[in-house]
């Protein structure tokens, strides 16, 4: 009698756990499916984060803060992330998150350069910087 009660409880717990796991997986998959195109939309040139990164690289090189060897290395990260985002594959994007941690400061630099050149105002600059933060959060949530 006691053994059957334990078995019933164990069965119920297993069912509950599997339901929670399935629900969690579905939720994560749904989030990834929504986030992947949102990330692509925010990334896309001509005025997306992609353009900010490119501008940041050029600005860093012009200011002598990035050598040509480093710029080649950074550009490899940039093209790899670009390709992953354009592919729309969640796994490919996840594999390139480390590249983004390297590129994010350059994107911020690109935004500040836009502001310095008078292309955007102070409020616009804040919105652009917020987009970089949101992109970072979205990549982390994938």
């Amino acid at each position, binding site marked *: 009698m006691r053994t059957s009660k334990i078995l019933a409880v164990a069965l119920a717990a297993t069912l509950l756990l599997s339901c929670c796991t399935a629900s969690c997986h579905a939720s994560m998959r749904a*989030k990834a499916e*929504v986030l992947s195109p949102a990330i692509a*939309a925010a990334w896309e040139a001509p005025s997306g984060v992609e353009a900010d990164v490119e501008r940041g690289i050029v600005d860093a090189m012009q200011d002598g803060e990035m050598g040509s060897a480093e710029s080649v290395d950074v550009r490899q990260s940039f093209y790899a992330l670009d390709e992953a985002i354009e592919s729309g594959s969640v796994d490919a994007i996840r594999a390139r998150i480390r590249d983004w941690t390297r590129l994010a400061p350059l994107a911020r630099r690109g935004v500040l350069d836009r502001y310095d050149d008078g292309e955007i*105002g102070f*409020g616009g600059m804040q*919105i*652009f910087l917020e*987009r970089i933060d949101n992109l970072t959060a979205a990549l982390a949530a994938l």
Partner: protein
Amino acid sequence: MSEGDPIISEPAVPDTGNPPSGEPAAAIDAIFAAEAKLSPAAAEPATPDATPESSTALASSVPKSVLADRVAAAVDPVAAFRGTLDSTLAEVGLRLAVDSTEAATMVAASAAKIASIAHEPGLDLAVRAERDNLALRLGIRTTQAASVADAQVLGLIHAGIRLVSTARVT
């Protein structure tokens, strides 16, 4: 949007031509009264036995539902955007990660931000960046399959931010 939206939803009894209740209804009545006054039929009746009813009938040539939309946009652009969002999503068979009221509230917050920088250079770039912010925030919050970054939804969000911010500036 809930079906009982007081401003932009269809009237409870279809095809009666009655405006929805509340402030917009009063505004519509005011427009009808003004149109009736301005109507040539009202100023110079075509026939001696012309009655106020006949001039009102001429003024009623504009469908009340169209007037209701115009009034809703003037009274509450966010509500008007919510209605547009709902009907467009229904037409194209998409759904958002959050309900349209919440989405419209987020669009209103973004529009307020854009309206506050309307004098700045690069406003169009800022609108696009704010649209991306909204789509990313919606995507981060979602736990169900949705169409946040679908091109049509992005276009709607973009237009919503632009229109509501313009309404706030003007």
